[in-house]
């Protein structure tokens, strides 16, 4: 861009020294040093509870460190609030993009929200001036967005871009991205990577958190691994990700993809000529006991909708379902669950968890919620029944929590997902439906979850994921759903023999 760019690539933008943070008896961060230079992408890695979120929250002004100092562009940096952090030039794009805007606002409005909230904004705004300013913002970020579309109709990829464009328009010098590709398709992720590379060239310092090694391998100039609140691995390009992952989970990761195995012939669930919409192609699918089937495909292809329809949230336009050779047509989730068909929804917080300060916001309460009438036929809650079910789940899946009464907000993404799985495995089910089960789940927890899913030999499992690597790791059979049409992804009964060009971890 200009001559200063070359000089500034070595300039330290953000430096944290000796950061310590504890929550009660838990030491979340234990003397962390971190440096991010302008024009570099730093990959922040770590298993569940390693301290990544705490570190990000401290940098973003959400939490205050107990000890340690932070400097930003050479000056002391002590944000008192997230807003303070943004004003100082540190913008954070969180995994959940719900808070960026709301339905009823246009994309242009969402882009300008920061400006509306500031005092510089005039009281009355014409549609045209909003659009003009929004156009300037996306032009500056070098992206394109449907400005007149309602924000509620935007997909996660576009929402992410809105957040990033806003960060750039706020003159951020450090950009923190938490699991940005978790809900993106591969094309969308590629678009994001182009943008990040461009921002890097412009001199931004980027902290990138992800559990996807292939993303990190593409982007990262430096990798830092947190474990138990300390930095256990720190390397610059070329980065040995095998060593990074070993440092991260404390053991070498030894798996490629799901081992081919014999599946029983017993058909658990059958889909016959089922159409998601009146004009879409009919879908036929047989699921066997103990079998794990994955459906991949781009966002909006109907994966979620297929799962939700099987769960009784919508009706099929036509066609029929059979469960254990009997006709199955649930009128809603209650009937589906009673029949043994359970769904772990895409957004854990919107489909499975209650707020921490409400009754039932604990691990025990989350696991027992669907089984209340079954476990307590006389209507009286018995804590010890709930707690022992939760303890069994915590043991079986290796959930890291203080106990059955821990609230979900104290758990990391991977442990939260394990709680969801513990819930749906607490009672024998016939068909387990998992929608994007690895969102925000790190490599270590992922292996535990995969093992727990594949060990289940009684029920069939149907997984929707936009990530073919994930599908390969877990599934016995893989299908793709595109334009509501279901096709086998690689043969019907066996997996491809060798690695298929994906980035191998071990």
């Amino acid at each position, binding site marked *: 861009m200009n001559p200063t760019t070359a000089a500034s690539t070595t300039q330290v933008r953000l430096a944290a020294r000796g950061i310590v943070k504890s929550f009660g008896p838990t030491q979340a961060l234990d003397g962390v040093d971190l440096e991010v230079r302008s024009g570099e992408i730093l990959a922040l890695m770590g298993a569940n509870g390693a301290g990544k979120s705490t570190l990000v929250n401290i940098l973003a002004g959400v939490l*205050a460190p107990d000890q340690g100092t932070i400097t930003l562009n050479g000056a002391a940096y002590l944000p008192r609030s997230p807003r303070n952090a943004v004003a100082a030039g540190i913008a954070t794009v969180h995994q959940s993009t719900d808070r960026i805007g709301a339905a009823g606002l246009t994309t242009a409005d969402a882009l300008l929200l920061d400006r509306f909230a500031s005092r510089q904004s005039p009281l009355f705004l014409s549609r045209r001036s909003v659009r003009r300013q929004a156009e300037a913002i996306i032009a500056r970020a070098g992206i394109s967005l449907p400005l007149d579309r309602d924000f509620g109709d935007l997909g996660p990829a576009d929402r992410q871009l809105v957040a990033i464009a806003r960060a750039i328009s706020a003159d951020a010098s450090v950009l923190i991205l938490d699991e940005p590709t978790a809900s993106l398709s591969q094309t969308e992720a590629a678009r994001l990577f182009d943008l990040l590379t461009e921002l890097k060239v412009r001199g931004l310092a980027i902290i990138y958190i992800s559990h996807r090694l292939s993303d990190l391998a593409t982007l990262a100039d430096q990798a830092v691994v947190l474990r138990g609140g300390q930095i256990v691995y720190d390397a610059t390009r070329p980065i040995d990700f095998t060593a990074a992952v070993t440092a991260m989970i404390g053991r070498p990761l030894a798996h490629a993809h799901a081992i081919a195995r014999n599946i029983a012939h017993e058909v658990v669930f059958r889909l016959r000529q089922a159409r998601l919409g009146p004009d879409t192609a009919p879908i036929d699918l047989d699921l066997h006991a103990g079998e794990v089937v994955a459906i991949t495909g781009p966002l909006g292809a109907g994966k979620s909708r297929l799962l939700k329809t099987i769960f009784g949230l919508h009706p099929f336009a036509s066609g029929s379902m059979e469960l254990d050779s009997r006709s199955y047509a649930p009128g809603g989730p*209650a009937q589906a669950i009673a029949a043994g068909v359970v769904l772990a929804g895409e957004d854990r917080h919107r489909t499975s968890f209650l707020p921490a300060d*409400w009754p039932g916001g604990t691990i025990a309460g989350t696991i027992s919620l669907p089984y209340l009438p079954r476990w307590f036929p006389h209507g*009286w809650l018995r804590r010890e029944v709930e707690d022992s079910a939760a303890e069994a789940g915590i043991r079986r899946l290796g959930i890291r929590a203080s106990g059955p009464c821990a609230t979900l907000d104290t758990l990391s993404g991977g442990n939260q997902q394990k709680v969801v799985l513990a819930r749906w495995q607490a009672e024998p089910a016939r068909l387990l439906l998992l929608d994007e089960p690895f969102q925000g789940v790190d490599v270590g927890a992922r292996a535990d979850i995969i093992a727990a899913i594949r060990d289940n030999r009684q029920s069939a499992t149907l997984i929707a994921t936009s990530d073919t690597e994930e599908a390969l790791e877990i599934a016995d059979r893989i299908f793709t759903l595109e334009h509501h049409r279901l096709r086998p992804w690689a043969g019907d009964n066996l997996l491809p023999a060798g690695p298929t060009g994906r980035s191998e971890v071990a």
Partner: protein
Amino acid sequence: MTVVASNPPAASRREQRPARQDSPRLRRLLQYGLMIALIGVSAFFALMSPTFLTPANFGSILVNSFALPAIIAIAMTLAVGSGGIDLSVATAIDLASLAYVSAVAAGWAFPVAVLAGLAAAALTGIFNGLLITGLNITPFLATLGTLFIGRSVQQVLANGGNPVYLSPSKLSTAVKFLAHGSFLGIPLPLYVVGLIALAAFILLELTIFGRSVRAIGARPQVAYFSGLKVRRDIAWIYLLSALVSGSAGILLSSTVSAYIPYSGNAFLLNAIGAAFIGTTLGARGHANIPGTILGVLLLAIIANGLLLIGWNFYWQQVGTGVFIFLILTFSFASKRRQQG
């Protein structure tokens, strides 16, 4: 003189704005926010008026301005706890009162008259349940509609909205005992409040119904995805709310020996206020029976205290409003400091 060796700026910052989960002490203190408000307000009035702290005055507060509002606030808490609101508690009170008084006037036995009152109240609850779960009308609008309809129904049934008085000769001993009797020195209406509060507390905290209802109140979609019978539970909540309000109507009519049209309206705002004060001032963050009871007590003490210190009657409500603002401001300020 000891010098604290740890990093002082960091330490003081930590005290100013710790994260939510690492401040059990402040959280515990907030749990008693309502208690602190109650004690503070009481201390204020005790200083201002010598009669405030007398047993006679407290007896008067409990019987005259606590018992009935508490029952209605409990009904409100059921609805608020399920994520809704019940504005038609007033209708349930009035219809129960009208049916009960008419039955007593017609010479029906006391238990039958009580059942008639409760049945009338149940009608409003069933109507609300149908509107909310059948027609998917939001609780606020559904119960507001019921409140309007209830006024017309009363006018039609009570000859243009005339009071119905019970002559003292018609009052059975049971009715008199319910309204004015006492047991072990404690007035009977307080037993009724205690029983209803205990039942509601047990229902909300110790049963699977209570857990389901709270799940629906917190995140309806999570409840639905978890297979809870959302409609059924919501319908029950509005029926229970109406029955509890109806029992307040019966108690009210027994006390004044009459049905007075639209008398339920006087309790509506108080009940909403108490339920939300109980929600807001507690650390729990959701409607709960103990919080509501303390909220009613707080409002009753404020009304009584303002009367005692000689505030102009017309300015009473201003005083109540100002007190609510002061208490909530204090509470939010301490919560903000806690959450940073």
